[in-house]
């Protein structure tokens, strides 16, 4: 029997349609690139252009998709923490971009560089997060033009997991590469990934495109992502949104491959409802999640890795809504087979704020999902036939070696969620989830240890940042 579940029920003919209609848009409407540097590349390769709008023929898109690798590895400062993207595992990074912190009191305040550092320490000690964000929060207490340097330096020194490079400007992208060079020397191996957002509909911002070009030339992986606000910057229907965003993302991918065939790319599309009573942006909804599912299918169709949104919510506190929305977004991504998610830990209300307590709670969600998608073991030992026969109906499995050997690893063990019986729960000193999270947070930060780094390298990195900041 065919199960008619909306989000898993698309056959290849639907994907063909989305693809072909995207090509139609690329040929007929084109994509706007307000960057002379980008236009020059397109012109030199013989693309049709009109003003800042570039038109794409099918062949150009197919050729570009043909050179995008199906998987790649990003080196970490600690080689054991390097990550493979597209190899089947689900890679997660924390919040991206929020300028505010929301405290447990509900108070909202500007984020600072100290917050960036605290989040870095949490990423470093996280069991589920695989790489860093380039703007875990946007610090408000350092100059905007050089904030990317402060963030990146903090991230390199406080963690040894893979890095994200800045895309806030061409200069910021170049700075990111310079810092990476200090660690890895002049290399074409992927050592940092970055996020390039298009400017819906059907265009890119100049700084995004120029950042994309910097990273592509250096062979560094880029997440090319397009998303529209359904009914506002794109059609209100998911089908229309998919076509418009797919066309835009494909154009960005094409530029990366023209500059440097083989540049690793992570494909991304999103789409979020407009709150029709206010025009507001909603980022955690069944419609968002549906995009995730279909987009994963599209990425498989193209044979390239893909990215989705993470544990997003419209809530401003650690309540049922925050959990429900975050879980819907993340579970859909996990079950669809997404390769990379950003925003997986710590995000509140429309991606405008981060919360330390939500970060801890999201880690439980992410950890449990990583466990959920892990293939079930079907080995001889796992079937435990001998044991089942031996114990028959009398069995006490608790006393068996088979159980004993696995009792610490068989199950996911939440850090924050309670599994206590009612009386114990009633007696708990910290019954509310955010208070328990606060306690875990304090423990994590106090037990944090800075990863080893060559003092010469550290000095070199600090000096570069100081010079650039004119200190």
């Amino acid at each position, binding site marked *: 029997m065919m199960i008619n579940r909306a989000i898993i029920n698309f056959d290849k003919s639907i994907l063909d349609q989305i693809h072909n209609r995207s090509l139609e848009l690329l040929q007929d409407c084109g994509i706007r690139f307000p960057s002379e540097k980008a236009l020059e590349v397109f012109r030199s390769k013989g693309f049709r252009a009109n003003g800042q709008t570039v038109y794409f023929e099918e062949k150009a898109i197919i050729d570009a998709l043909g050179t995008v690798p199906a998987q790649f590895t990003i080196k970490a400062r600690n080689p054991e923490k390097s990550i493979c993207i597209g190899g089947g595992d689900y890679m997660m990074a924390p919040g991206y971009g929020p*300028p505010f912190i929301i405290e447990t009191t509900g108070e909202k305040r500007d984020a600072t560089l100290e917050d960036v550092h605290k989040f870095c320490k949490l990423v470093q000690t996280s069991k589920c997060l695989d790489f860093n964000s380039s703007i875990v929060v946007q610090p408000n207490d350092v100059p905007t033009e050089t*904030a990317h340097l402060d963030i990146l330096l903090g991230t390199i020194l406080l963690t040894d997991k893979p890095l994200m490079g800045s895309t806030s400007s061409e200069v910021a992208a170049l700075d990111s590469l310079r810092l990476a060079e200090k660690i890895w020397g002049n290399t074409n191996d992927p050592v940092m990934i970055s996020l390039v957002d298009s*400017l819906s509909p059907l265009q890119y911002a100049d700084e995004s495109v120029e950042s994309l070009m910097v990273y592509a030339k250096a062979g560094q992986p880029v997440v090319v992502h397009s998303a529209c606000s359904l009914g*506002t910057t794109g059609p209100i229907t998911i089908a229309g949104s998919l076509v418009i965003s797919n066309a835009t993302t494909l154009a960005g991918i094409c530029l990366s491959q023209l500059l440097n065939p083989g540049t690793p790319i992570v494909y991304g599309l999103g789409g979020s409802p407009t709150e*029709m009573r*206010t025009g507001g942006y909603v980022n955690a909804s069944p419609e968002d999640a549906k995009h995730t599912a279909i987009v994963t299918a599209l990425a498989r169709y193209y044979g390239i890795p893909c990215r989705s949104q993470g544990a997003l919510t419209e809530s401003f506190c650690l309540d049922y809504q925050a959990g429900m929305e975050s879980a819907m977004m993340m579970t859909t991504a996990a079950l669809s087979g997404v390769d990379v998610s950003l925003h997986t830990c710590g995000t509140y209300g429309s991606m405008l704020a981060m919360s330390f307590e939500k970060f801890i709670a999201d880690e439980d969600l992410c950890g449990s999902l990583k466990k959920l998608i892990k293939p079930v073991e079907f080995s001889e030992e796992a079937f435990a036939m001998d044991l089942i026969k031996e114990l028959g109906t009398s069995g006490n499995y608790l006393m068996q070696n088979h159980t004993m050997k696995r009792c610490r690893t068989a199950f996911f063990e939440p850090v924050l969620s309670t599994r206590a019986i009612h009386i114990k729960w009633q007696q708990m000193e910290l019954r509310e989830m955010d208070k328990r999270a606060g306690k875990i947070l304090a423990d994590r930060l106090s037990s944090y240890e800075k990863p080893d780094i060559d003092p010469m390298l550290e000095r070199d990195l600090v000096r570069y940042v100081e010079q650039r900041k004119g200190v």
Partner: protein
Amino acid sequence: MTVKEIFDAVLAFDEATVTGKTQAELDGGTDIDAILNDGLISAMDEVGERFSSGELFVPEMLMAAQAMKAGLAILKPHLSAGQSQSKGVVVIGTVKGDLHDIGKNLVSMMMEGAGFEVVDLGVDVESEAFVKTAAEKNAQVIALSALLTTTMPSMESTVKAVKEAGMATRTIIGGAPVTQAFADQIGADGYSADAPGAVKLVKELVA
């Protein structure tokens, strides 16, 4: 036929009926002031209220505004100088360095719907452009939008430029990361967290 039918047609987002009835009333010799105020403008006031209370959705509000404007276009050649159809001129834009325009467009469309003449300068707008356009258009209000904390300083420089130009034009600001405290800090004349609030603010400022 009555002016009430024009009012109802605006509330039904029915542009064809609005223009048809407006023309008919005009031809029938109904007082232009009555058509304008009791028909079109009071209908938009009602739309504004229904939108603020959450009864109307954004596209409905915008369609109503469009229907109202179509009716207005028919009256326009017949309006005397005293019956100016505009409540005031607002110059709006997203500040330098910032390309977010969804919220700004919404504010702009709602202000138009409320009867203001809106000059929309788009995104990534320099301080000088705000000042220059406001002077040319004799605008009462300059409305600035920013969605990035990193471009909020452009609001400050624009507000400063307006003051330095010695203009009487009032400045209002908004956008997700912007707050009343920030508005106070940079000396802007007003702040609102949403589009209906922005319209109310402008009404107060030009009153």
